[in-house]
């Protein structure tokens, strides 16, 4: 790990402004992903701005009937919040399907959204990776690609976004609130937060330089049956091969989002119109244009079958 200086921020605006002043600075909250990557010299900040002291750890009701989740709310607390469990169960389930108890106790809402890919070639500094070292190539393409992306991928990168939480938040159409170094704030639809890899897989989000996430706002509850079905190589503490987040109403209509297939949580609202025609029809639209490798083409079938299972579960709850 490279040496770095360290300071604690007193306010979100101060944190963002300080980040803009100091070259090579990064925010640290839970740190469970950042420190992991710093130990491998994949992340090399020269200054860490500890944002844990900012009072962004509350979950508050919004005037619109939703909830505003502070950026520093820990994954455990978000999953266990009675309002989330009752009205946003898909989010609670997604959180509980991710990581371990130890990690969820520390990992934050904003940090979870901004975690880096777990592509093995991103982690292996002996391998080419356009995300880690732009222009170096992609060893994953033609390499061990079984866990990697099947849609929205590019010639430069086939990495996936590893978060479960983000998939549920995309399903719920959450808004990501931020503050910039000049003190201005904005709200970004979560659909627009994560980028597809394109030719610049190193640029993963639409956040500006030193822009700090302060909260994630959930719209009013959707009702319906909430399901998060994650398929992985072991029963616990593993990243998804694929996951299906769903909120399905009694009439069979609903929303579907996928994890483990793309560089961002994957949702296509027009595919949801096909829900009355069954999982095959929805999957065909949702994954139209997919370009899997030989090793991960199984994910197409896995999505369809998992979605069929999810829709069957919803019918039994209806």
């Amino acid at each position, binding site marked *: *790990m*490279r*040496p*770095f*200086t*360290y*300071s*604690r921020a007193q306010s979100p605006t101060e944190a963002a402004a*300080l980040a803009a*002043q*100091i*070259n*090579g*600075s990064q925010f*640290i909250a*839970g*740190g*469970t992903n950042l*420190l*992991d990557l710093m*130990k491998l010299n994949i992340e090399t900040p*020269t*200054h*860490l701005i*500890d944002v*844990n002291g900012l009072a962004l750890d509350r979950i508050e009701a919004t005037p619109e009937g939703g909830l505003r989740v502070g950026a520093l709310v820990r994954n*455990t607390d978000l*999953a*266990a919040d009675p309002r989330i*469990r*009752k009205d946003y*169960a898909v989010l*609670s*389930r997604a959180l*509980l*399907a991710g*990581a*371990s*108890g*130890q*990690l969820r*106790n*520390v990992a934050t809402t904003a940090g979870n959204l901004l975690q880096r890919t777990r592509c093995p070639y991103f982690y292996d500094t002996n391998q080419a990776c356009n995300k880690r070292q732009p222009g170096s190539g992609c060893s994953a393409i033609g390499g061990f690609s079984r866990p990697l992306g099947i849609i929205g991928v590019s010639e430069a990168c086939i990495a996936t976004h590893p978060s479960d939480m983000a998939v549920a938040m995309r399903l719920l159409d959450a808004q990501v609130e931020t503050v910039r170094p000049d003190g201005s704030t904005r709200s970004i639809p979560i659909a627009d937060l994560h980028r597809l890899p394109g030719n610049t897989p190193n640029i993963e989000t639409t956040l500006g330089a030193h822009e700090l996430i302060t909260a994630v706002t959930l719209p009013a509850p959707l009702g319906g049956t909430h399901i998060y079905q994650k398929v992985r190589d072991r*029963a*616990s*503490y593993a990243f998804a091969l694929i996951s299906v987040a769903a909120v399905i109403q009694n009439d069979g209509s609903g929303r579907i989002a996928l994890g483990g297939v793309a560089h961002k949580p994957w949702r296509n609202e027009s595919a949801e119109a096909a829900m009355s025609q069954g999982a095959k029809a929805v999957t065909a639209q949702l994954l139209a244009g997919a370009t899997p490798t030989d090793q991960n083409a199984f994910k197409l079938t896995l999505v369809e079958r998992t979605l069929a299972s999810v829709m069957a579960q919803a019918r039994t709850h209806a």
Partner: protein
Amino acid sequence: MDAREQKPISRRTFLIIGAVTATAIALPPFICAQASAANAARPVLSKLSIEVNGELHDMDLDTRTTLLDALREHLQLTGTKKGCDHGQCGACTVIADGRRINSCLTLAVMHQGSKITTIEGLGSPEKLHPMQAAFIKHDGYQCGYCTPGQICSAVAVLEEIRQGIPSHASPSLTEPPRLIASELQERMSGNICRCGAYSNIIEAITDVAQASA
């Protein structure tokens, strides 16, 4: 003064003293851009006080020091183990401000004012914590390397269930979680046991849970 400084000078201590002499850094709470750029290439020291097992320690640590290394290398509390050092094995699990965490994936300097409980703080050979006694009774280990992390995790797991925190294995999000094997297995999945003592570990935890129920 921490225990490290009472020992004959080690290579590590020598290097740290050298770094302090060379750069004379006393980290201010707010750092200007120039200071950061100048300091970045050299080790940076930061002061912190941290309560470990009820005892307050003032330390002056390289900012890169993880909580795990602070415990093991600076406070000589070597009960907490370093396995993968990447948050994948759980051997380094300690309880920080009432919650189990991977001490390898957090910086010591982020724990200014925290209260940490390690395996040494849970019990002693003369007065075992009930979870330690249950691990012995049920043979919940073979080599023992993961055991301190398993025990710290298990103690916190029972508290999480008591608080009603749900898990992936909970059939309902609205009813309190139950003390059953599937719940314990899921909640303990962040602690890997290479010897495979899992079934005995679950029996030990179940025993403690039933005794305290």
